[in-house]
């Protein structure tokens, strides 16, 4: 019996969208091992999140394990590792899946080290044979792809790149599998000195979604010529329901904050649509968008390397093209 445990991430009672992708990946693995020889459970950690647990019952897990305690209101890697490791050691889960979010990246390696098992990070595809996880992941600054396989069938921890796996769909009433049972975990023995103390979360003003999670990213480069010109990209992003990103040159010039930098020293992203405006496309920038589904480039220089990866390239002045696109979308 192969047990897959999926960590469902929440902050303030709101489920992280990419957690459903981890659940979807878990279901795919279960289909490969055969539903008779596998089990899929999910775990939720937080405070006062019973309602949230109810809403995720219909996504194909057999059990929703719920660790609900005031001390768990905020993410704490010490307490979260403790709860996950305890549950995994008790149930003997063979595979633990987390989304490679800020939380997943902080938590998964610590959990894997406590369990002493294999860790596969930032996976873009997953497979299983003989109980061993096999994954594809990007290496060497996003330039090469590696197929890696776990060599130990127990306590295999994997993090999944957001937007790389289809999210689990809700199962309709009367269909199989039946809605999950919610099971409360015993959290009476939590460590009393968690060491790391939460102080605050400072949300960046005006940011609707993080570039790593957005389905549409409109990014600007050196060709934007100045911070004030980003207004047109914000307007375009707004019309498309996306967010604005930036190249390294833009961040280093101080036109835009580091948290929206796309590329090797910024964030690697996998949106449905990436629109690069005035970005020439250095190797380090391209490393951040190799897994984008569709790439559109707008650049004056027909020889810009960004055109080599663009599905659609527009050779022209972005200060003409972008406003024309905006008025076309408005019209």
């Amino acid at each position: 019996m192969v047990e897959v445990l999926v960590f469902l991430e929440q902050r303030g009672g709101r489920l992280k969208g990419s957690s459903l992708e981890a659940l979807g990946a878990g279901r795919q693995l279960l289909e490969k091992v055969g539903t008779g020889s596998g089990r899929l459970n999910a775990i939720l950690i937080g405070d006062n999140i019973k309602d949230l647990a109810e809403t995720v019952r219909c996504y194909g897990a057999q059990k929703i394990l719920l660790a609900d305690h005031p001390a768990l209101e905020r993410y704490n890697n010490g307490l979260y590792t403790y709860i996950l490791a305890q549950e995994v050691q008790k149930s003997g889960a063979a595979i633990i899946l987390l989304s490679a979010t800020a939380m997943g990246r902080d938590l998964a390696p610590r959990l894997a080290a406590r369990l002493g098992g294999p860790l596969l990070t930032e996976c873009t595809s997953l497979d299983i044979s003989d109980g061993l996880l096999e994954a594809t992941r990007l290496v060497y600054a996003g330039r090469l792809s590696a197929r890696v396989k776990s060599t130990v069938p127990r306590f295999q921890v994997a993090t999944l790149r957001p937007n790389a796996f289809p999210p689990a769909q809700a199962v309709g009433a009367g269909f199989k599998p039946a809605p999950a049972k919610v099971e409360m975990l015993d959290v009476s023995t939590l460590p009393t000195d968690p060491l790391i103390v939460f102080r605050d979360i400072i949300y960046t003003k005006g940011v609707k979604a993080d570039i790593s999670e957005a389905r549409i990213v409109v990014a600007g480069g050196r060709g934007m010529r100045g911070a004030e010109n980003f207004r047109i990209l914000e307007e375009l992003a707004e019309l498309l329901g996306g967010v604005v990103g930036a190249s390294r040159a833009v961040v280093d010039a101080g036109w835009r904050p580091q948290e929206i930098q796309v590329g090797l020293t910024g964030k690697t992203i996998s949106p449905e649509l990436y629109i690069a405006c005035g970005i020439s496309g250095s190797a380090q920038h391209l490393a951040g968008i190799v897994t984008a589904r569709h790439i559109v480039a707008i650049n004056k220089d027909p020889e810009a390397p960004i055109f080599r990866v663009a599905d659609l390239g527009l050779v022209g002045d972005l200060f003409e093209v972008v406003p024309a696109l905006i008025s076309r979308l408005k019209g």
Partner: protein
Amino acid sequence: MNIIVCIKQVPSTEAAPRPSPRPPFIDTTGLSWVINPFDEYAIEEALRIKERQGKGEVTIITLGPESAREALMGALALGADRALHIIGETHLGVDSYATAYLLCQAIKGRLFAGSGPVTFDLILCGKEAVDDQNGAVGTQLAELLDIPHAAVITRLSVDATGKVVVHRQIEGGTEVLECPLPALFTCQKGLNEPRYPSLPGIMKAKKKPYEVVPATRLAPQEVWGPGARVSVKEVSLLPTRKVGRKLQGGAAEMVEDLVKFIREEVRII
């Protein structure tokens, strides 16, 4: 305050390595090697803390082949006080736990004669190495040493009582955490602006303590050897993207095409 910085020597990101079927899984001919860019932020932060406090020692540790000496000498030239070089492989087949385990053994001074543990109040690492892109060794080292950690920090301050406040990057914002020492943090761009080595720095580096220990002295091969937990099946070039269309002409006509592309091929609006 005594600070340990763990670094890794990696191929420069300017070059695109060619895949190879056997370890180290890339063709290393002609590659130039550098200190992992994120580790530079860790080194810089350690030096700044030491300079501010006017006391303490910065120890740089790496796991890598003989040639990784260049990276350690580079860190000493920037101003670090001493280096510890664990001689061993670091290619993709050596998993993050194995690396963290070796670093942990070296820090604790286990199994190699003539040297005690490395004392520390703080450990800094890069948020990930740009070659394996795992982002796990630092965090796993914290777990093995049983000290708290925070990953991907962009700000660090130490108060008079030795308590540390860090900012870590999360989706859409910043998480502010407080943590007692000893602790480990992994560093992200934005933390500081790394310095360049000076000529006197390079000269002084040659006289600084440099200790070498083979990985085989720190732990048995089963724990850290290739395939201990993860094996590499294949490293390959990325599938090439389908050659796209390139439009030239008036903005209005190109925009028509673009809108059609978004509606019919991307299909999200």
